[in-house]
């Protein structure tokens, strides 16, 4: 069962990079704000159907939860806006690796301080070395991207 779940999650990662590629392509003709709007609109339509059939929670409780929990939606919008802006300029893989690094760094920070009621996991030497490897990865992806761009350009001319 666990192996099945891990494969399922791998598929989740695949859909995320496919999304950034698809949105990047659409935004070249339609524009950044338009692409983000379309993604959110079709996503809510799809989820509305899913909730009707499989929703077991209580959507109305949204009126009672602390307001800071609702503020995350602004982050969701910013995330998509930034992705749609970056993909046509630096490509799918550079965008995805950079996103992952931002994600892990903030993840480590949240764990360290235990923000938002999360488990406190201090920044130890292992995690510091991990941060170092992320910086190395970012350096390689920047260089590798520059090199394959130069190769593509020299083939054209």
């Amino acid at each position, binding site marked *: 069962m666990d192996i099945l779940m891990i494969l399922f999650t791998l598929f989740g*990662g695949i859909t*995320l990079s496919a999304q950034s590629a698809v949105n990047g392509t659409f935004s070249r003709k339609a524009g*950044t704000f338009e692409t983000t709007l379309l993604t959110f609109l079709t996503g809510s339509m799809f989820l509305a159907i899913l909730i009707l059939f499989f929703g077991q*929670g209580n959507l109305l409780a949204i009126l009672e939860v602390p307001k800071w929990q609702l503020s995350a939606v602004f982050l969701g919008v910013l995330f998509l806006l930034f992705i749609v802006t970056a993909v046509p300029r630096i490509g799918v893989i550079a965008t995805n690796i950079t996103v992952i690094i*931002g994600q892990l760094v903030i993840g480590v920070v949240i764990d360290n301080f235990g923000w938002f009621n999360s488990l406190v996991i201090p920044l130890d030497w292992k995690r510091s070395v991990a941060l170092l490897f992320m910086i190395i990865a970012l350096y390689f992806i920047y260089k590798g991207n520059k090199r394959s761009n130069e190769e593509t350009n020299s083939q054209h001319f």
Partner: protein
Amino acid sequence: MRYLSYILALLAGAALSLEGAIYGELGKTIGQLETSFYNFFMGSIIIGLLWLFFGKGELSYTVEAPKWTLLGGVLGVLYLTSIVISVPFVGVGITMVAVIIGQLVMSMIIEHYGWLGSKRSRINKEKIFAVISMIIALILVN
């Protein structure tokens, strides 16, 4: 402009982590699917307003565009739902590692072949080193 794009992508990742931590709390109260729905529904309203005032593109391109380019929203929902389903079974740590590995390998393949309309960009030594460094970092974080 290139540097700016890298900074935007870093900020996007930071936003995703903060969002995940906050929505985890919200999900406990109103349910996970409901949390995703709240995100997409309120998100549509916010981006709808932003689009009204700042949108310079062409929303009408939606009807002419090849249909597969309209799948971004559905793919986003699949991503969110697969995470919500697997976290209770294998935990957040393994879930994130699996997601990230799927994301890395898939974006490399997409770009290598120039699929989904992306600019074709071959896999080279540097990119493979980058992925190896990421995998080491992932092992160390967990």
